[in-house]
C-alpha cells in the first residue's frame, strides 16, 4: 500500500494518511475483538450462572463433637429452624431436649402423654405426630419449635447490650435467644401440643405401629394393634363456604392385614402414603406388603407382597420422603433404595400397580446403614451408618450433596436434616453430638436429572419430564431439559421443512429466471417479510392461522401436495402452448401466471379437502355405535392374551385393536352392539352429528383405521418414488422415440408421462398404505396424533414465514454471486436457464445456500414469540405434527419472571439458555466448516 520511498519517485505518504490508516487499523481490530469478547462474555456469564447446578453441596462448618446424654432407645430427632435445639423422641415416647451447641441436656425425658406409649408415628414436616398408647387409643398432636422476635418489655433483663449478631443465650426454661443479623433477639422454644386420646374401635391390645399423614383437608391415620388388627382412619376436614367452624368427619376402613408366614405379626415399619391409597408394611428382611383398596372388596386388602432387597440383605432403616410417596430403605451393606408404587399396568397385582425399586444408592464404605432421615424441603435424605458417617443425598437427582463423619467413628443412632436443609445433626450411640452446617447447593439438579431419564414417583418407567413447578411444595420437581431441547429441534425441523424448499426455489427463481427489473422489486419485498416483528407473526398464528387450520385441516394437509402438482401440471400444459403465443408473454406476466396457478392450487385444495375428508375419515357404523355409547364390555378372558394383564388400556395400545373391531372405552375393551336403525340411536347420531367425517376424531384415535393416514402420507412418497422409477426405467426408452424429437409432440409425451406418474404414484401409495396397515403400523404413533389447535403445523407455517426471508436473501446472494461467464458458457452450450441453474449455478452456490439454511436454523432455534404464542407450550416429546411443544427459548420467556434469582429453577433456565447458545454455536460452526470446505473445492473460479 505504502510508497517505496522518496528516492524512487519523489512521492511521499502524508503523515495524516498514515495516522488515519493506523487509527482505522486499531479501531477495526478493536471492534472485531470486541465482538468476540462480547460473545465470549455472554457465554461466560451463562456458564457462571448455570454451573453451580452441578456443584455438589458441601459442609461449610463442622461444630466440634459434643458429648450428650441421649436416651437409650431414641426414635427421632427434631431440630429447630435455626439449628439451636434438638428434641429427641424415644421409643417409649419420652421427649428430651438438648442444646445443639453445647450438647447439654436442657430437659430430661418428659413423657409426652399419660399412660404407656407403645408406638410413635413418623412426624410430618409440620411437626404433626400421632402416638399409639398401650390401652389401644391414639393421640394426635404436634411437636415443633416456635420462634418469635422479642422486643422491649418481653426482653429479659440480663440480655447483654453489646452482643454481636449470632450471640446465643440459653434460658433456663429450655428455650434460647439469638441475636439476628438485624440485631433483634429471637427466642426459640419447644412447642408441644397434644389433644385427648381416642380409642380405636377395633382390635385388642396395645398399638404397635402407627402412621399419620395430614394434608390441608384430609388426614389419614393407620394403626396396627398387637393382635394384628390394622385400621385405616380418614379424617376429612371441610370448611363451609362463607365461614364457620371447620367440620371434621372420621371414617374407618378395615385393613385385612395378615403378616406373611415366618414373620412377626408386627412389621418393623408401617406407613401410609400421603394420598391415602396404600399402606406399606416392611419387615427387616426386606419383605414388603402393600395394601390397597381392591375393587370389589371392602377396605384395604393385600395387593402385593414383594422382597425389596436382594437376598441376604436386610433393611436397617426406613423412612418416607417428603410427599410420603417414596419409601427409602437403608440396607445393612450401607446402600439405600428408593421404592414407590408405580402405575405399571402390572399383571400380577389386582390393581395393576407395583412396588418398584426406582433409585439405588451405592454404599460409601460398606458399613451398615443405621438410621435414615428425610429432608423437609425436597427429596433429600441423610443416612447414618455404623462407621459414624452421615451421607446426604437427593433422591430424584441421585446427587450426593454432602458427607459428614464423626471422628473417632461411632455408630450413628440419630440423624436429622434441619428444616431449611442447611444443617445435618447426628447423634451416635455413644452419645456424641455432631452438627454440620451444609451448603446444599442445588440438590435437585444433576447431569442425570437435567439430561437423563429419571424415574419419577408413581411413573411406570423412567422418562424425560419438565415440570418446574407444581401445586404443592412437596411435589417432585422435574427438571429434564431434554423435552425442551426436543421441542426446540421439533420446531426447527418442521419450520425448515416448510421454509427451505420455498426459500431456495424462490431464490433460484429470482436469481436465475426472473427478469432483472422484476427481481429488483421482488427481492426487497421478500426481505421486508423479515422485518415483521415475530410477536406479530405469533399473534397472527395463534389468532388467525390456528383457527383456520383447525377448520380447514384436510384442505391444508392436501395443499402441500396439490399446489405443487397443479404448478407442475400448469408447466406441462404450458409446453403445449405454441411458441408463437408463448413468446408473447413477458417475464412479469409469467410471474402472474405462476401466482394464478398457486391460487388455483389452493382453490383446488379447498374444494378437495372436504371430499378427501369424507372419503378417508368417515366413521364406520361400528365407530358411530361406539361414539353413541352403544357398546358392551368384552369379558377379560376374551381380551387379546397380551393385553389381559393390563389394568387399563391406553390410547396407544387401543389403536391396533381397531383392526379386530374392538374399541377401548374407559381403559376397558368394548365392542359395539345395537343397530343404528334404532330410532333413539338414529336421533342421537343425527343430533350430535356423530357420523360426520372428521379428521380430528381420526387423529384422536376414536374412529377409522390407520390406512387413511397412510394413504395421506404415502401419496407424495409414492409419486416421488414413481417419478424416480420412471426416470430410471421409462425415460431412456421414451427419449429415443421419434415422437420425442418434435417439440409439440414431445410436450404432449411429457404431459402424458406426468399424468402417468401421478397415477402410478397413487397406486404405489395405495399398496404401500395397505402393506403398512397390514403390518400393524399406525402413523398416529409418529408424525400424526391427537390434534391441538395450537400445534406444530401452525408453528411450521408461521415460523417458516419468519425464516424464509433470511434463507432466501442469503441464497439469492450466493446464487447471484456465481460468475456470469459460467452462465454464459452453459447457455452457450444450449442449456436452458433451468438446466443452467441446477447443473452449474446451484452446485457452485451450494455453500452459500447451505449456510443460509444453517442461519435459518439458528434463527428458528432461537425464535421465541412465535412458538410461545402459537403452541400450547406443553413440554411433550413426540413428533406428532398436530401437538404442541415447548422450546428452550419459550421456556425461558415464560418462566424467568417467576424464578427467584439464584434458585435452582432460575439456574436451570440459564442452563437452558446455555444449551440454546451451544446448539446455535454448534450449528453455526458446522455450517461455517462445511461452507469453507465447499468453497475451497470451488476455488479457482
Amino acid at each position, binding site marked *: 500500500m505504502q510508497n517505496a520511498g522518496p528516492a524512487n519517485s519523489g512521492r511521499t505518504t502524508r503523515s495524516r494518511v498514515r495516522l488515519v490508516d493506523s487509527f482505522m487499523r486499531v479501531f477495526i481490530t478493536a471492534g472485531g475483538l470486541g465482538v468476540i469478547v462480547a460473545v465470549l462474555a455472554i457465554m461466560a456469564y451463562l456458564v457462571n450462572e448455570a454451573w453451580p447446578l452441578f456443584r455438589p453441596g458441601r459442609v461449610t462448618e463442622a461444630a466440634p463433637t459434643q458429648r450428650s446424654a441421649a436416651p437409650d432407645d431414641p426414635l427421632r430427632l427434631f431440630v429447630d429452624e435455626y439449628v439451636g435445639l434438638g428434641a429427641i423422641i424415644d421409643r417409649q415416647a419420652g421427649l428430651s431436649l438438648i442444646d445443639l451447641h453445647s450438647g447439654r441436656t436442657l430437659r430430661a425425658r418428659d413423657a409426652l402423654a399419660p399412660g404407656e406409649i407403645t408406638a410413635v408415628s413418623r412426624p410430618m414436616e409440620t411437626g404433626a405426630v400421632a402416638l399409639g398408647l398401650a390401652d389401644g387409643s391414639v393421640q394426635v398432636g404436634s411437636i415443633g419449635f416456635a420462634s418469635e422476635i422479642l422486643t422491649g418489655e418481653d426482653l429479659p433483663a440480663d440480655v447483654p447490650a453489646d452482643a454481636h449478631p449470632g450471640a446465643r443465650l440459653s434460658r433456663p426454661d429450655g428455650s434460647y435467644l439469638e441475636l439476628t443479623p438485624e440485631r433483634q433477639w429471637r427466642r426459640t422454644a419447644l412447642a408441644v401440643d397434644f389433644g385427648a386420646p381416642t380409642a380405636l374401635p377395633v382390635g385388642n391390645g396395645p398399638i404397635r405401629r402407627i402412621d399419620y399423614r395430614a394434608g390441608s383437608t384430609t388426614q389419614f391415620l393407620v394403626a396396627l394393634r398387637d393382635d394384628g388388627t390394622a385400621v385405616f382412619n380418614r379424617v376429612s376436614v371441610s370448611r363451609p363456604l362463607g365461614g364457620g367452624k371447620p367440620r371434621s368427619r372420621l371414617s374407618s376402613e378395615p385393613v385385612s392385614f395378615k403378616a406373611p408366614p415366618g414373620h412377626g405379626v408386627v412389621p418393623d415399619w408401617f406407613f401410609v402414603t400421603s394420598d391415602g391409597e396404600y399402606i406399606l408394611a416392611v419387615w427387616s428382611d426386606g419383605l414388603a406388603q402393600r395394601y390397597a383398596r381392591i375393587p370389589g372388596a371392602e377396605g384395604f386388602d393385600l395387593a402385593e407382597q414383594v422382597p425389596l432387597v436382594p437376598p441376604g440383605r436386610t433393611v436397617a432403616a426406613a423412612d418416607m420422603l417428603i410427599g410420603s410417596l417414596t419409601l427409602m430403605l437403608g440396607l445393612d451393606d450401607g446402600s439405600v433404595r428408593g421404592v414407590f408404587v408405580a402405575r405399571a399396568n402390572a399383571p400380577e397385582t389386582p390393581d395393576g400397580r407395583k412396588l418398584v425399586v426406582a433409585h439405588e444408592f451405592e454404599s460409601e464404605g460398606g458399613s451398615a446403614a443405621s438410621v435414615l432421615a428425610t429432608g423437609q424441603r425436597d427429596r433429600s435424605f441423610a443416612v447414618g451408618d455404623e462407621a459414624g458417617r452421615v451421607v446426604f443425598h437427593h433422591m430424584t437427582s441421585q446427587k450426593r450433596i454432602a458427607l459428614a463423619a464423626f471422628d473417632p467413628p461411632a455408630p450413628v443412632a440419630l440423624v436429622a436434616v434441619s428444616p431449611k436443609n442447611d444443617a445435618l445433626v447426628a447423634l451416635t450411640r455413644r452419645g456424641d453430638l455432631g452438627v454440620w452446617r451444609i451448603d446444599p447447593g442445588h440438590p435437585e439438579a444433576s447431569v442425570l436429572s437435567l439430561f437423563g431419564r429419571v424415574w419419577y414417583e408413581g411413573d411406570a418407567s423412567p422418562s424425560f419430564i419438565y415440570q418446574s413447578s407444581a401445586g404443592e411444595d412437596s411435589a417432585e420437581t422435574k427438571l429434564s431439559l431434554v423435552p425442551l431441547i426436543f421441542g426446540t429441534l421439533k420446531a426447527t425441523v418442521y419450520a425448515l421443512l416448510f421454509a427451505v424448499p420455498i426459500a431456495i426455489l424462490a431464490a433460484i427463481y429470482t436469481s436465475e429466471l426472473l427478469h432483472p427489473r422484476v427481481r429488483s422489486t421482488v427481492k426487497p419485498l421478500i426481505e421486508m417479510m423479515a422485518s415483521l416483528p415475530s410477536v406479530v407473526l405469533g399473534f397472527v398464528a395463534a389468532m388467525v392461522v390456528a383457527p383456520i387450520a383447525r377448520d380447514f385441516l384436510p384442505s391444508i394437509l392436501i395443499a402441500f401436495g396439490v399446489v405443487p402438482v397443479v404448478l407442475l401440471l400448469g408447466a406441462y400444459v404450458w409446453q403445449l402452448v405454441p*411458441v408463437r403465443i408463448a413468446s408473447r408473454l413477458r417475464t412479469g406476466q409469467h410471474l402472474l401466471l405462476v401466482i394464478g396457478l398457486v391460487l388455483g392450487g389452493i382453490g383446488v385444495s379447498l374444494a378437495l379437502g372436504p371430499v378427501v375428508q369424507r372419503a378417508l375419515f368417515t366413521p364406520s357404523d361400528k365407530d358411530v355405535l361406539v361414539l353413541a355409547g352403544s357398546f358392551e364390555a368384552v369379558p377379560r378372558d376374551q381380551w387379546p392374551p397380551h393385553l389381559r394383564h393390563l389394568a387399563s388400556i391406553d390410547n396407544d395400545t387401543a389403536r391396533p385393536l381397531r383392526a379386530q373391531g374392538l374399541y377401548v372405552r374407559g381403559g376397558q375393551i368394548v365392542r359395539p352392539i345395537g343397530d343404528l336403525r334404532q330410532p333413539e340411536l338414529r336421533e342421537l347420531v343425527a343430533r350430535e352429528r356423530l357420523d360426520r367425517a372428521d379428521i380430528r376424531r381420526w387423529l384422536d384415535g376414536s374412529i377409522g383405521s390407520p390406512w387413511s393416514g397412510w394413504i395421506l402420507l404415502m401419496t407424495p412418497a409414492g409419486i416421488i418414488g414413481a417419478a424416480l422409477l420412471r426416470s430410471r426405467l421409462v425415460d431412456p426408452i421414451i*427419449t429415443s422415440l421419434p415422437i420425442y424429437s418434435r417439440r409439440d409432440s414431445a410436450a404432449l409425451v411429457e404431459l402424458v408421462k406426468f399424468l402417468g406418474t401421478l397415477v402410478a404414484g397413487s397406486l404405489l401409495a395405495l399398496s404401500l398404505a395397505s402393506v403398512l396397515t397390514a403390518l400393524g403400523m399406525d402413523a398416529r404413533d409418529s408424525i400424526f396424533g391427537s390434534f391441538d389447535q395450537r400445534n406444530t403445523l401452525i408453528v411450521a407455517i408461521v415460523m417458516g414465514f419468519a425464516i424464509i426471508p433470511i434463507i432466501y436473501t442469503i441464497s439469492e446472494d450466493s446464487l447471484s454471486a456465481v460468475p456470469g*461467464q459460467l452462465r454464459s*458458457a452453459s447457455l452457450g*452450450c444450449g*442449456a436452458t436457464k433451468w438446466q443452467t441453474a441446477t447443473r452449474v449455478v446451484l452446485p457452485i452456490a451450494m455453500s452459500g445456500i447451505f449456510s443460509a439454511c444453517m442461519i435459518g436454523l439458528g434463527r428458528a432455534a432461537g425464535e421465541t414469540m412465535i412458538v410461545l404464542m402459537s403452541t400450547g407450550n406443553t413440554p411433550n416429546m413426540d413428533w406428532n405434527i398436530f401437538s404442541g411443544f415447548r422450546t428452550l427459548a419459550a421456556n425461558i420467556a415464560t418462566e424467568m419472571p417467576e424464578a427467584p434469582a439464584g434458585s435452582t429453577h432460575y439456574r436451570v433456565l440459564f442452563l437452558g439458555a446455555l444449551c440454546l447458545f451451544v446448539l446455535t454455536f454448534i450449528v453455526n460452526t458446522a455450517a461455517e466448516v462445511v461452507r469453507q470446505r465447499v468453497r475451497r473445492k470451488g476455488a479457482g473460479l
Partner: protein
Amino acid sequence: MATAQPTSESLTAAMAGRRPGVVSPAPATPRPLPSASMALPPVDPGSPPMAPVASAFDQAVRNGEPFNAAVHAALAAEDPILRVKDFSLHYGKSRALWDVSMVVPRGKTTALIGPSGCGKSTLLRSINRLNDLIETVTCTGEMVLNGRSVYAPNVDVIEIRKRIGMVFQKSNPFPMSIFENVVYALRIDGENRRSVLQEACERALRNAALWNEVKDRLKDSALGLSGGQQQRLCIARAIAAEPEVLLMDEPCSALDPIATLKIEEFIRDISGRITVVIVTHNMQQAARVSHFTAFMYLGRLVEYGPTADIFQNPMLPETESYVTGRFG
C-alpha cells in the same frame, strides 16, 4: 497533470494517423459523435477529423448514419452459412451496431477485427443470442443461420444455441470434472449412455489437442488445469456436441504464446469441418488463422474480404490505417 500518461487527446491523435505525443492544435470544427458512445472508444468530442479529407466512413459517423461496408467480390463465390442483414443493436438508448450486413462462408474461418468497443464481440454474441441476457438489449435486422432466422418470434433460442458452440475470452470451465465439462452439452440433451459420452469426450478432446494431456485424469476437477489447458477444454466443450458454427471471442487474449499457438493450430485443423467466427485483437492471429477478415469500427462493418486482401490490399484508408497499426 504534467505526466507522461497517455491522454484521450493523444489517443484520438493516434487514431487520426499521428504519433502520440504530438500536440494537436485546438480543433476548428467539433465533430458530432454517433450516439453509440457506450460501444465506442473514449473519444474526445473536440478531436479533429480522422483524415484531412472526409471519407465516406467519416461522413457516416459524423451524420450518425450506417455505413455501407466495402465487401470484396471474392465473398460472393462462397456458400454462406450465416447471413446478417441490416443488423442493428441497442444497449438501452445507445446504439452498438449500425446496420451490419455480412455473410459468413460455410466451413471457413472468419475473423472479426477492429479496435476495442467497435462492436465485434457484440456482433458475435448476437449470433447465438447471448445478448438476450442483457435486459436492455434490443435489436433489429435479420440474422439467418442455415436458412433459419435466429431472431424470428417463434424460434426456440435453446435450439439455436445447441447448433452454435462458443468459446469465451476468459476460460470458464465449470467446477466439475474434465469429463463432465466436455460432455456437458450432451448431458443437457439427456444423453446418459456412458459409451456415447466417452466417445464424444475423447473426440472433442483430441480435436482440441488436449487428449494426451488429460486422458489419465478425466475425473479430476477442471479447475486444476493450466490457463491454456482450460481454454482448450472450453473449446472441447464447445465442439463436443458437433455444432455448425463455433464462435470464439478473443480466445487467446489471456494466454501465453505457446497456448496461443496450440489454439491457432486447432482452428486451422478444424476449418473445413466447422465454420469458425473468431474475434481477435491480434492482427497477426487473424492473418494466421482466418480465410476472411471483417474490419469493424464504431459499430459499423467497414471492410470485409479475404484475409490476404484485407491485410495487404485494403480498399479503404480506414482499414489500411488500422492494419498497419496506425491506430487501434
